[in-house]
């Protein structure tokens, strides 16, 4: 399984754009990159998933360079409620949809007023 490295913590202010970069140097060909958000005492919540280039949804964007050895989660105009731990995960997705997630150390994002 590809190992991921991301910042332990990040600070931001309301209204700013936050970019969290994750390194995954030994990503495999069939690995997908997935980001989850977790609030205290709640289950991880899916944010975004991608394989290459750029993916955008209603809450975030995911930028993946051509070599796929890193990825950047971009949160536009964060609010206080975005304070949470963000996990970057890299795992193969089988044709059956099956994929085992290995959580590493996430990034604690603190958004201040």
């Amino acid at each position, binding site marked *: 399984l590809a190992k991921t490295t991301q910042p332990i913590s990040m600070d931001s202010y309301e209204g700013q754009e936050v970019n969290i970069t994750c390194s995954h140097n030994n990503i495999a060909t069939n690995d997908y990159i997935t980001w989850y958000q977790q609030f205290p005492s709640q*289950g*991880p919540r*899916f944010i975004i*998933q991608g394989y290459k280039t750029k993916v955008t949804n209603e809450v975030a964007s995911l930028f993946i360079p051509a070599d796929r050895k890193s990825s950047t989660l971009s949160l536009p105009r964060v609010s206080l409620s975005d304070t949470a731990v963000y996990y970057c995960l890299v795992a193969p997705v089988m044709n*059956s*949809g*099956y994929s085992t997630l290995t*959580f590493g150390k*996430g990034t604690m994002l603190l958004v201040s007023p």
Partner: protein
Amino acid sequence: AAGVIQSPRHLIKEKRETATLKCYPIPRHDTVYWYQQGPGQDPQFLISFYEKMQSDKGSIPDRFSAQQFSDYHSELNMSSLELGDSALYFCASSPSDRPDQPQHFGDGTRLSIL
């Protein structure tokens, strides 16, 4: 939209007792995963089931067992409980016919061992 349901939400047990945690996946999700998250720790994969068969095994102690039933719900059975088993236990589900769909997590069962 329907989410993953876990019960109970909180459970208090004493050492050496047994516990059963239940997970009801999102409708039409046939794959279930169990994770354990200790205090201040990251979630750790325990075990998973696909179409009622065990599909993968992680760091699950031999004292724990799990199964998936015909209605796709799953139960995690824990015996000879130890203080170190105190943790949040999450269940996640995904549909096997939609490889683009990620795992969706429940809000977990908080197990406290006294």
